[in-house]
């Protein structure tokens, strides 16, 4: 997948949380645990999805293999991945602020 296409594509909650979890280098199962913790149990990613998403993110050079374990490989964000994540967080922040305004309006209205 070309990097450019990632910028405009809607991102799944799973992909977002995987990137977020990889702010510190982790192995696959660690990512799963971290996501459950971060999302307070609202997002639970299955092993198949996790593996598939990690492959895609690595293909897009968003993440890389930081170390080769026997079986447990450690992944980390690349510079590209970091930039992408920061950009995404900014967009999400705007969305959530707008959401809050809407909530206030709706509450005043009712």
């Amino acid at each position: 997948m070309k990097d450019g296409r990632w910028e405009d594509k809607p991102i799944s909650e799973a992909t977002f949380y995987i990137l977020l979890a990889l702010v510190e280098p982790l192995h696959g199962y660690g990512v799963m645990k971290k996501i459950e913790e971060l999302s307070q149990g609202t997002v639970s990613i299955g092993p198949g999805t996790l593996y598939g998403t990690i492959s895609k993110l690595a293909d897009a050079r968003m993440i890389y293999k930081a170390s080769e374990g026997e079986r447990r490989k450690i992944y980390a964000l690349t510079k590209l991945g970091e930039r992408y994540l920061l950009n995404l967080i900014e967009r999400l922040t705007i969305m959530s602020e707008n959401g809050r305004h809407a909530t206030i309006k709706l509450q005043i209205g009712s």
Partner: protein
Amino acid sequence: MDTRKMRKVKWFWLWQDAKQEDWLRRMSLDGWHLVSPGRLVFTFQQGPPQEFTYRLDFFNKSEMSFLGDPADRRSEYLGIFEDSGWEHLGQVGGWQYFRTPGSLDGSHVVSTEVESKIEYYRRLLRNLLLTSPVLLVVFLPRLEIYPIWFAVLLLTVFVVGLLFAGLNGVMISLRIRQLKNE
């Protein structure tokens, strides 16, 4: 201890992954636990009846990836499943069979797996659409060079193949739609 084994012949269509999972679960409840899956022949071992949740997941080994060589990626893929409590039972044509004790409750929802299945079925559908016209090109123009009985036979095979592909196409499309709604 009783360790009787049993082989059971059962046919499942490609779109019946969920049906297969449910069948395996019910077999375990009857005390027959899957030892090795097959395209047609499933081997079970007798044991105390127990509830297991079975999952079929598709692992595409040919997928291009920068993650390393295929054997390596496979062991990592299986490792992630094992770490999260899934036992690997075997594979059939890329479909990996996993199970975990008990029924799935909120704590290990695998609902996000749906996406990778949809992707798999889409690929299957695309391959089907691509190969059907090829059949047409290969088969039909040559019919007149064969004796009539052979031409009829070929035509029959062709029509049956086309019906088969059509059925697969429709059912896989339906399965994709169903998965999308999950």
